[in-house]
């Protein structure tokens, strides 16, 4: 029982890191970015390649995956995404899904279609006995890292000057500009951070989810469910939603294996019937 809960939380935490960037672009910047998974995939591949080909240690690969995905995010945001901020959602969807297919083919061409695997360092493998349950050390590590990141995110958004500038820019970009804020820079930074976090998620998840060229499509539905269930007005929403989905998914597959895969969809349907704006959606949110 405890093990199932623990696995679910670890999975949920991972989902949160993977999808929080999407919550930011979708909720705060009002941009439908289906290519979000492509950044996660980039992070995963950076990790796999630098570990397997360059022999770098796993822990060093994590920040590297973050930086690489963030850099990719900045470049794409400045060159492509920036042109679509004012466009309709349909344009944004078409553009970003096209980007997904291009990313998938590129990766397929460069690395082949097989799954990339890494061997974790010895101190992250194995299990420990805790409160009568056997807990995987890597999942424990995952939960810790993700919890710290979630906390940092919330602090940055709510307590810092940058956080208030971001919220102001989103609420009304024109007034924010008039007050002397560099809205473009804020959006670019935010987009980069979101992409970077996705990259980090891809790197952290390589052991659980593995990474191959179909990654962005395979997990797109999970990201979207997290963001829909959580609502996009705060970080708390997607965070709790990710945990809920993670636990529901694992517990569903454990206790009701016959309908395991449908569990998360049922959860989503129920939440959306009760709260159409998501768990923490507010009426005024765009």
């Amino acid at each position, binding site marked *: 029982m405890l093990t199932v809960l623990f696995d679910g939380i670890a999975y949920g935490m991972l989902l949160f890191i993977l999808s929080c960037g999407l919550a930011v672009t979708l909720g705060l910047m009002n941009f439908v970015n289906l290519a979000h998974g492509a950044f996660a995939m980039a992070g995963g591949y950076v990790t796999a390649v630098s570990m397997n080909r360059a022999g770098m240690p796993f822990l060093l690969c994590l920040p590297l995956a973050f930086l690489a995905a963030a850099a990719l995010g900045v470049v794409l945001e400045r060159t492509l995404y920036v042109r679509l901020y004012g466009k309709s959602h349909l344009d944004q969807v078409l553009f970003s899904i096209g980007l997904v297919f291009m990313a998938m083919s590129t990766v397929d061409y460069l690395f082949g279609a097989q799954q990339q695997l890494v061997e974790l360092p010895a101190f992250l*493998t194995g299990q420990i006995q805790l409160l009568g349950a056997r807990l995987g050390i890597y999942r424990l590590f995952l939960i810790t890292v993700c919890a710290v990141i979630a906390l940092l995110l919330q602090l940055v958004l709510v307590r810092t000057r940058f956080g208030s500038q971001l919220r102001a820019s989103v609420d009304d970009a024109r007034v924010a500009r008039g007050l002397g804020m560099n809205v473009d820079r804020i959006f670019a930074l935010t987009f980069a951070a979101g992409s970077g976090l996705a990259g980090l998620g891809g790197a952290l998840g390589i*052991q*659980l989810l593995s990474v191959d060229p179909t990654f962005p499509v395979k*997990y797109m539905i999970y990201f979207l469910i997290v963001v829909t269930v959580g609502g996009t007005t705060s970080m708390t929403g997607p965070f709790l939603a990710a945990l809920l989905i993670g636990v529901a998914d694992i517990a569903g597959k454990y206790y009701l294996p016959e309908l395991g895969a449908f569990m998360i969809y049922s959860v989503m349907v129920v939440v959306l019937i009760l709260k159409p704006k998501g768990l923490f959606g507010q009426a005024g949110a765009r």
Partner: protein
Amino acid sequence: MKRRTWHAAVVAVGLSVFLGSGAMAEETIKVGLILPMTGPSASTGRQVEAGARLYLDQHGDTVGGRKIELVVRDDTGTADVTKRVAQELVVRDKVDVLAGFGLTPLALAAAPIATQAKKPMVVMAAATSIITESSPFIVRTSFTLPQVTTGIAQWAAENGIKKAASLVTDYAPGIDAAKTFKEVFTKNGGEVVAELAVPLKNPDFAPFLQRAADARPDALFVFVPSGFGSVFMNQFKERGLAQAGIRLIATGDVTDDDLLNGMGDAAIGVVSSHHYSAAHPSPENQAFVQAFEAANGGMRPNFMAVGGYDGMHAIKVALEKTGGATDGKALVEAMKGMAWESPRGPVAIDPETRDIVQTVYLRRVERGADGKLWNVEFASMPAVKDPVKAAK
């Protein structure tokens, strides 16, 4: 009309550049190879294609003055694409033989087309028992899951394993494997304490492995499709099932030769039963592995490669028998009862079922003198037919 001519010209130019020959299309015998070359099963496609090409390189590609030409098409592992591609190959490219087929649903989607067009359909990879029954033109050179599962189920019952759990991927071959395992294992005095089916598109094996662990079996029997073995192995290791005293037994799909070296020490000691190991100690196989690795940048051949290799053998020898005539019925007749020495050992095509009859080996993963992991064979069961069709 203009457009079609243009297409044909492009195809013809492409092919002649590709094969480096100026032969006219009418003179060649075309084999349409439909494989998943992209997507999650792409490794299957690569292996089968490399195996088929190697056969033609080694044994010559002309029969009765006509050249055998491979037309490779990617179906991305999606059944409706397979069907469309098969149609195009028959109608537009006028292929004489259909071959390949990486997964069961893909083979089943193309079967009606083979029947209608009266073209031989050589299944080189897909492994559900019923496939050969879906068209009288199907000949199989891969294996069936019941065929290879029987071995490990018997071995488990005879080697002190009393309680076992099974974990398979939830689609036709997986169900075949789980059913056969249970039948044979219980008949030999064992007990199956849990039967788990994992969705085909499953990101996380964790809950299923946890359930298996909680059932406290002596061993866990596993089937996953080619290409998924290493992800499974990683999670099996992480969950500490081996430390809890649960042995891992499997069909050879899990300890796939193509991926085995990426699995690390966790794979050592895993016992599996299958029809091909790259470590098979025969001169035919040693020559095959060496040539395959040399031609493919060091990639180790797996059971998919040998399926493609033997598939081309069946096609070529059948063509020799018919003197280069490409009548579908005649070719299938020529393949029935054909027997030869493959890299995997002696094989034959059952004249009744058109399915393959072959030796099934029990193997254990060991680290060889070269520092690499191999499936080392330690027992064999000669001339195993597909048990499902044999029981009918």
